[in-house]
């Protein structure tokens, strides 16, 4: 009994510790400007005078407690984030799944996995400087396809290695039986294998979407104005009069958590299977 209590307390303590920054952000999102920092007075955990002005500010560009209106609202960065994160995820998942299947089944070009991993070996900034020069030369700076393409490229290793682990665990006899029954190899992949690994594809897609959605560095370096994403927009939330707009940033942080949560809930039934897929050796 004491052991259970101690375990529960320990879990509660660490959960509270993990949730502290998120709860601070949630609280900040509802604080008026005068409560954002200790400079303006006492700083409290909960808002003394809760308000929705921070949300209004990012969506409309104006707020009763801000002297200066925002030059840009959140709508365009929201659209840019959704478009580039989804496109990048599709690129990575489609290419990664195809490559993983081919290598897993044909046992050829197995070194491709290590080649893909090179993208993740170096510090991101070291990789991004030449990418920035190439993208600039190709006229892909501040374009949605330029950003989606690099998202697809940098998350391809995750997609490849995750999917390869799933395919390696899947008995090839199932596909061979389908081929014996008259399917072409592609039909066997599409009609037999893919539905079986759908849960794995879903969990891989969610993982990659979150990586793309939360990226800051790549979007900072490869966008300027038209296609800046939410993390870059969030960093730019500052005015001359107020400096950093902590409340607006927190409100945006809460909003930014919504799409991954919706995506996670919508594919929840695949997730549990997907996350445990291949966990046990045959």
């Amino acid at each position, binding site marked *: 009994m004491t052991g259970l209590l101690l375990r529960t307390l320990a879990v509660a303590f660490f959960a509270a510790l993990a949730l502290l920054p998120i709860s601070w952000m949630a609280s900040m999102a509802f604080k008026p400007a005068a409560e954002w920092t200790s400079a303006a007075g006492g700083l409290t955990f909960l808002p003394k005078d809760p308000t929705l002005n921070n949300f209004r500010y990012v969506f409309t560009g104006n707020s009763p407690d801000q002297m200066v209106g925002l*030059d840009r609202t959140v709508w365009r960065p929201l659209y840019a984030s959704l478009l580039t994160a989804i496109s990048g995820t599709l690129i990575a998942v489609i290419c990664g799944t195809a490559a993983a299947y081919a290598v897993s089944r044909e046992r050829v070009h197995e070194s491709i996995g290590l080649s893909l991993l090179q993208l993740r070996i170096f510090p991101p900034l070291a990789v991004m400087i030449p990418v920035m020069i190439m993208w600039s030369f190709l006229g892909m700076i501040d374009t949605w396809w330029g950003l989606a393409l690099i998202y697809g490229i940098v998350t391809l290793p995750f997609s490849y290695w995750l999917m390869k682990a799933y395919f390696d665990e899947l008995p090839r006899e199932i596909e061979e039986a389908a081929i014996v029954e008259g399917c072409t190899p592609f039909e066997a992949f599409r009609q037999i294998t893919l539905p079986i690994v759908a849960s794995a594809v879903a969990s891989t897609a969610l993982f990659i979407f979150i990586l793309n959605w939360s990226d800051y560095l790549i979007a900072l370096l490869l966008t300027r104005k038209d296609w800046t994403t939410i993390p870059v927009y969030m960093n730019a939330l500052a005015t001359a009069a107020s400096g950093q707009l902590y409340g607006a940033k927190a409100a945006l942080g809460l909003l930014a958590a919504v799409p991954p949560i919706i995506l996670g809930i919508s594919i929840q039934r695949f997730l549990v299977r997907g996350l445990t897929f291949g966990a046990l050796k045959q």
Partner: protein
Amino acid sequence: MTKTNITRRGMLKGGAAMTALGAVGINPRFVRPAHASALASGMTGGPTGFPGAERFQYNESHSEGRAIEAMKKMVAEGRAPAKITMLLTDGAIGQITQPFPSGPSVKEVWEAETGVEIEIVGAPAGDIWKRVLQDVTTQSGAFDIYTHPWNSLGDLVEAGGAMNLNDFVATHQPDWADEERGTPTAQTAELLYKYGGDYYGASLDGDFQTLVYNKSYFEDSAHAKPFEDEYGRLLAPPSTWEESDQISAFFTGRTGLGGSKIYGNGNDMAPFWGLPRFYARFAAQAVPNMYWFDEEGRPNLDTDQAIKAASEYVKSREWAHPDALSWTYAEGYAGIGSGQTPHLTTYTNVTKFVDRMNADGSPASAAAGQLSAYIPPGVNHDGDLVRRSVIYYNITGTVSSNSANPEAAYLFLQWLSSTRVYSWMAGNPAGYFDPFQKANFSEQFVEEAYHPYMMDTIRETIARSAPTINFAGQTAFDSALDEELQAALTGQKSPEDAMRAAQRKWERVIKRKGEEKMIPAIQASRAAWPTLVEKG
């Protein structure tokens, strides 16, 4: 037979020029007579539609008018771009894009008169230099105009990112150094617009660090009497850093507006933002100045004077808010606005944002209506009082060396930074371009925004301001010093050890950059220092 090479860029430029020409010629928005009828007699351009607009209008004999006429000529000849792209700190965009006080915005006036669109790409003040370097490195030519701290000008020139503007300046004659309307002194013009004797930048700011204090605290007998009893002098704005520290010590722990606890030292002390506070103390440690480097170009950081300044600066943390090491200028503003601090040295727009009333008539801060300003404190050297402030950050516009349209970019920059348009823009509370030209200080809108008490104070502060570092290597110099000062502020090192370490780092920077190049730049920068010394 002549072979004509048609390139993609050539076609695009031609198309852009035709579009611009068409816009001026066809679009009713650009039809001249309607606009001209609203202008004052003899004026050919400028804002209209609000009382006092004529103060910002111009004709061909003015700097702005020359820029507009040259731009229109380029449009007519098909040499103008359809668009000029400007990289700008987020906090200043509003002054260009938001109408003030009513009628058109600065951007709209330019676009209406020339037909050339201005695209502004924003970046946070702390990140803008990285964005500039990114563009210079990739040579993308994405921006025609960069804006960045004045301190970075030397590094940008050395990196080949800024275009030499000598020819444009000679041709179009900006009024930057105009004796009646331009910079307060010819020396200031040299400092702000030139690097190594050549024109490279156009100042769009006046970041001369200025002392602001809460007058009601100083006049309150509940504070004044005990201060006089303790220190044997009146509670008044400080003449020296010693007096400033006494005031900070005295106020710390006392009760202020709304029952708030007062922290006597309101200065932001965070990395980067706190650096000018140290520089100002340092500069006043000798007569007429304690220079950052000696005449041979050797750093002065390990001198007794530098160590004294660092020790005092570190000690001043005792009277600052516990969070001060993470505060930027904005928290400094909030601190004096809430009544949490009695005085601070900061950017001049503090009064524009803090000491004002909201649209509904309510005060924008607890301290609204209670602030005042004073010339910077210094050090008394046996009767010679050396008061020093510094110029630090100061948004500066440069024409990108990768711009496909450098002359057009320059013309917009000249128009924007000339004394009529700049005075109009400086009065706009939607951003932090601050007044620094003579014309700004006599402008009603600027005075209303910044308050009359700031006008003389800023002028006098400029006259006592030393230049922080702006030659090549500045980023490395400032980062090294900042790192060591933070180590001292957080108790990791003694001020003496920190300054000796910073000295070694600065010496290494000079060696790395090449003494033959660095020493002339260091020696040249000494000429821009003030020489004003008072009898104390």
